[in-house]
């Protein structure tokens, strides 16, 4: 029911007032982060991860997001694919917040292997660099397992389509 509601809300947002001049922007990023997992039938776990992320901005406020991460301490690979509605601080466009859902995958038990609700923040602290400070939290809809990540990534943006 939760998933159906999320899908319907995103579909309604995508369908609202379609216009010509649509363009999408793809972004890629690599970096490192700390990851913490808790509850949901497994022991608490924490790790240091190398991460690669991709984001396709479908509209200025809807993005398809995904990524893969490798945990150095527990030697796992985990990933996620999902969608987020994002907003930017009206007075500081270097800061944004996103809320959405994603399907998470894991190579070893202990992370998330299910649909999860997500909330994320990102901040570009420097005007001279594109480096981003990011943090995210996810909640497994089936197990109730929680994940929190915080780290630093370096984005590369690829633009296609008409300018907006």
């Amino acid at each position, binding site marked *: 029911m939760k998933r159906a509601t999320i899908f319907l809300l995103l579909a309604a947002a995508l369908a609202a007032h379609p216009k010509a001049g649509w363009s999408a922007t793809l972004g890629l990023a690599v970096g490192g982060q700390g990851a913490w997992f808790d509850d949901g039938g497994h022991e608490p776990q924490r790790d240091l991860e190398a991460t690669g992320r991709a984001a396709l901005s479908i509209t200025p406020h809807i993005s398809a997001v995904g990524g893969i991460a490798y945990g150095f301490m527990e030697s796992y690979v985990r990933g996620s694919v999902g969608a987020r509605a994002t907003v930017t601080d009206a007075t500081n466009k270097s800061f944004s917040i996103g809320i959405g859902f994603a399907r998470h995958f894991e190579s070893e038990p202990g992370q998330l292997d299910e649909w999860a609700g997500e909330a994320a923040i990102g901040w570009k602290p420097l005007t001279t660099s594109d480096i981003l400070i990011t*943090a995210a939290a996810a909640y497994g809809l089936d197990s109730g397992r929680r994940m929190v990540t915080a780290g630093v990534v370096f984005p590369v943006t690829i633009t296609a389509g008409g300018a907006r």
Partner: protein
Amino acid sequence: MTLVQEWLGKLVPPLADLRGVMVSARERLLAMKARLPEFGPQIDAQIAELDAKIATLDADTSSDNLSAMAGVLANELMHGPYFTDRPKPSDFAG
């Protein structure tokens, strides 16, 4: 008002301030047009869209007509010209 409420208020323009946001966006577009005259036609088109939305709001000032207001807000959230960074920094978190 708590700090969290103030912070959230900055992130999402309240519905009541929507007209002010659009007027502000229109002013920024005019400034952009002065700086970038080569993009004049495209910017004029954006201004015309904003004018139409502002006129819609002005024509329907009943605060209980949430459907019309939500439609304008949804359109701004999808296509508003004042949030331009794409993808957003938070899209890379996870």
